[in-house]
């Protein structure tokens, strides 16, 4: 028989199969006899074994942390808004805290954009060989400042939200905080990892949006209760 007839047995042999003498192994046993005298098949077995070994040792590709954020968001697609914002659906009034939240977001967007666009210009002044600071650092600082401001506003108005909405918001913030932590961990290992940098900024940006909506929703709830109080007052007069 020629070598081609043993294609499957050659593969099985490379994968570790050996004839055991049982009747079902007759073809494998025949291949082993053929192999003993065939230089071509011996070379194939040696090369395939090297390839199989190298393939099994290939490095892992790690998905960027932002992928989960994207998947979680896409699950809520029919709602047209990201799933973490689903309970917040509705028109938001232009009320004072909303204006503050929007202003903070605009400030942060502007500052982030400036920091991001000015960063490369500063690079040539850095000493060669000095440890590079992650590119995200300036933008991250601005996001953190905005988040701190928005968190304070949200905390002041927390009581205006019902328990269910608070629970959903808390859960969604936890998802984002986890994405932020994972991105930071990835950047700690590899500061120049562009995917991790982008993931981190995506997650921070989403958190700003969520907090902004929280403030707006609380303001909406407050305005609703003020209206109700006003209506009750009118009825009592």
């Amino acid at each position: 028989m020629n070598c081609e007839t043993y294609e499957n047995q050659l593969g099985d042999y490379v994968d570790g199969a050996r004839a055991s003498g049982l009747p079902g192994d007759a073809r494998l046993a025949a291949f082993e006899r053929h192999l003993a005298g065939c230089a071509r098949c011996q070379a194939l077995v040696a090369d395939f074994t090297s390839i199989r070994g190298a393939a099994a040792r290939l490095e892992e590709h790690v998905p960027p942390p932002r992928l989960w954020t994207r998947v979680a968001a896409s699950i809520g697609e029919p709602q047209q808004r990201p799933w973490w914002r689903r309970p917040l659906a509705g028109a938001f009034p232009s009320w004072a805290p909303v204006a503050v939240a929007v202003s903070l977001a605009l400030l942060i967007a502007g500052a982030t954009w400036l920091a991001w666009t000015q960063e490369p210009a500063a690079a040539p002044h850095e000493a060669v060989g000095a440890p590079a600071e992650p590119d995200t650092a300036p933008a991250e600082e601005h996001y953190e400042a905005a988040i701190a401001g928005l968190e304070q506003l949200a905390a002041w108005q927390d009581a205006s939200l019902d328990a269910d909405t608070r629970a959903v918001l808390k859960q969604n913030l936890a998802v984002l905080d986890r994405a932020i932590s994972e991105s930071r961990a990835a950047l700690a290992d590899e500061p120049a990892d562009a995917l991790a940098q982008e993931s981190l900024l995506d997650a921070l940006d989403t958190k700003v949006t969520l907090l902004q909506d929280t403030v707006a929703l609380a303001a909406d709830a407050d305005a609703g209760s003020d209206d109700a109080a006003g209506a009750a007052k009118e009825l009592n007069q």
Partner: protein
Amino acid sequence: MRTADLELAARCRAGDADAFEELYRQHARRLFGLVVRMLGSGEDAEDLLQEVFLQAHRKLAGFRGESTLGTWLYRLTMNHCLDHLRGRHAKMSRATDSLDDEGTAEPMAPAPAVPPAISRMDLEKAIDALPPGARAAFLLHDVEGFEHQEVAEILGVSEGTSKSQVHKARLKLRAMLRR
């Protein structure tokens, strides 16, 4: 394993967000590596895997536990990858067959053996040059470590076809790595 899969699928169907995240965390890592190598691009892999998990979320209602959740997800992923590659192929108007069928004949002249220590870069590049069908079978069998029976189940082919595709892939890789 099947019971755990069925329970996890039931929790996902019931809208338990933690359950779906658990499913994602269990499988995303291995699937991402596979998709990066199938498509040759991390960016495309992200987009495709996002679509796969969205489809999985929608299709979990139809999961009956006949295969493991892992196999089910791999099948969904490979179908997406092969569709994506077929689309890319069509766009590029390349003259190809359905999956593969380029010749696998070995060079007539004696060639040097594959180096015992194959460089990772060389192997990655060679895998990227494989035709989609052979690449899929090779990645599942030799990189991911699935048995031929599982590869056949994931790709929806016979076990013999899986063996033949892996053989074809190894022959092509050998030819590329000996150059």
